[in-house]
């Protein structure tokens, strides 16, 4: 290759197929560019940049009875403001509205969040928690569908090959009318801060019986990839929502942080911070106050 970077703005998926077919160099897809443009300044450059930010076929939010489908190039500002989506999956819209700033959310996309695989990416724990399926259009024009863990494999690492493109994210709508969900994040300030820690929770909650039938909890920014907190889930499953549950939940969160990052400098901070985050989540989910056990006002 000559070292020059070529650009292309295809109008549809067929045109992308024609572009990548037989192209021997490295290909980058750009949508929002909020990660890629910085990478272009710093690292090795691709031979071809394909802009997909204006492709209508990749920008949509659809729902049927048992799933929500989201186009990979859908901007986070559209996700954050989507009322029907907020009613079905508040965990996703809450995460989208806490990413970066207005300027970032207007450009950054859900597919880009996956492809960048940044450990602090706010949508990553949510998408793992919701057990999403990721549709990828491969360079050989076949389409494959993979689970979150099969695509995001490490810090900044994915299983996507050169010329592979994420096209669609499908999220199953589990637990019917019992489905509740929420997202919480701690950054250095409320806006524009990359997450130090975030939590996504999805539950099957019987509000009449006040009982958590099933639950999935995933933490982000605590390792190279989002981490499912099965030990915390076990504390909640099958239980009534009350202060005793809150106490056990917060304790289990701290224990999970201790297990995840033993000896890390941030452990001392995160094992406490996660309790505040846990309290926020409970209050967000159940709209009532819980007291952190053993905390005086001064400590809180």
């Amino acid at each position, binding site marked *: 290759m*000559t070292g*020059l*970077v*070529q*650009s292309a*703005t295809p109008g549809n998926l067929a045109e992308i197929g024609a572009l990548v077919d037989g192209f021997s160099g490295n290909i980058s897809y*750009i949508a*929002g*560019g*909020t990660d890629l*443009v*910085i990478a*272009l*300044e710093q690292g090795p*450059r691709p031979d071809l*940049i394909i*802009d997909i*930010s*204006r492709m209508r076929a990749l920008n949509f939010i659809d729902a049927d009875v048992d799933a929500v489908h989201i186009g990979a190039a859908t901007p986070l*500002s559209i996700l954050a403001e989507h009322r029907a989506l907020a009613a079905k999956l508040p965990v996703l819209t809450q995460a989208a509205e806490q990413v*970066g*700033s*207005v*300027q*970032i959310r*207007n*450009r950054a996309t859900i597919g880009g969040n996956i492809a960048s695989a940044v450990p602090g990416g706010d949508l990553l724990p949510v998408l793992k928690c919701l057990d999403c399926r990721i549709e990828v259009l491969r360079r050989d024009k076949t389409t494959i569908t993979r689970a979150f863990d099969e695509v995001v494999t490490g810090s900044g690492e994915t299983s996507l090959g050169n010329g592979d493109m994420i096209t669609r994210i499908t999220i199953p709508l589990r637990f019917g009318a019992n489905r509740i969900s929420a997202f919480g994040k701690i950054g250095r300030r*409320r*806006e*524009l801060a990359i997450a130090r820690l975030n939590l996504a929770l999805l539950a099957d909650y019987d509000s009449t019986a006040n009982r958590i039938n099933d639950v999935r909890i995933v933490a982000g920014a605590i390792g190279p990839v989002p981490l499912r907190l099965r030990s915390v889930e076990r504390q909640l499953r099958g239980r009534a929502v009350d202060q005793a549950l809150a106490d056990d939940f917060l304790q289990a969160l701290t224990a999970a942080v201790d297990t995840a990052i033993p000896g890390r400098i941030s452990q001392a901070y995160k094992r406490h911070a996660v309790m505040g985050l846990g309290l926020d989540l409970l209050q967000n989910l159940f709209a009532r106050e819980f007291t952190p056990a053993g905390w005086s006002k001064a400590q809180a």
Partner: protein
Amino acid sequence: MRKMEQYDDYITARRLELPVPGGSSTITLRVNEVEHQHAAPATETLAQYLRNRPGLTGLKTGCGEGECGACTVLIDDQPVNSCLVLAFQVEGRRITTIEGLESADGTLSALQQAFIDHGAVQCGYCIPGMVIASEGLLRRNPTPDDTEIRRALAGNICRCTGFLNIIKAVKSVASANARAVPE
């Protein structure tokens, strides 16, 4: 003080120095209702293009990674960080920079005037981004409350920490809009 013409000479000189490597293609952008055509490499950011090719130096490149907001411009009325957009991505879209807010005779917009009236400008480096981000908010929502203003400006950092007067300036325009259009 240097005269404006000297700045124009400086900008022209800078423009001539710009490398236009072979393989660049022509990028046509519509900025403030004016069409600009320049050869530029595919990796050129919108901020680099606007500042160096047509010489629209109102926007500033502060951090170059979307943290500071000094390079904010509107694309189809939506605020974005122009340092994180490649110029070729926005061909055919409507781009508004700080230079596009004043009227043809040089009269400042109500929002720009409010920044002056409220003493919202200190060193001034963040101000083009602050004004454009506020303009984007007001085009979407002419009567934002304090929380909405703060959220809309969360991506813009003022190193002089003059946030309160900036928020007051935007609030004054929002209040004027509220009076003009009774609910």
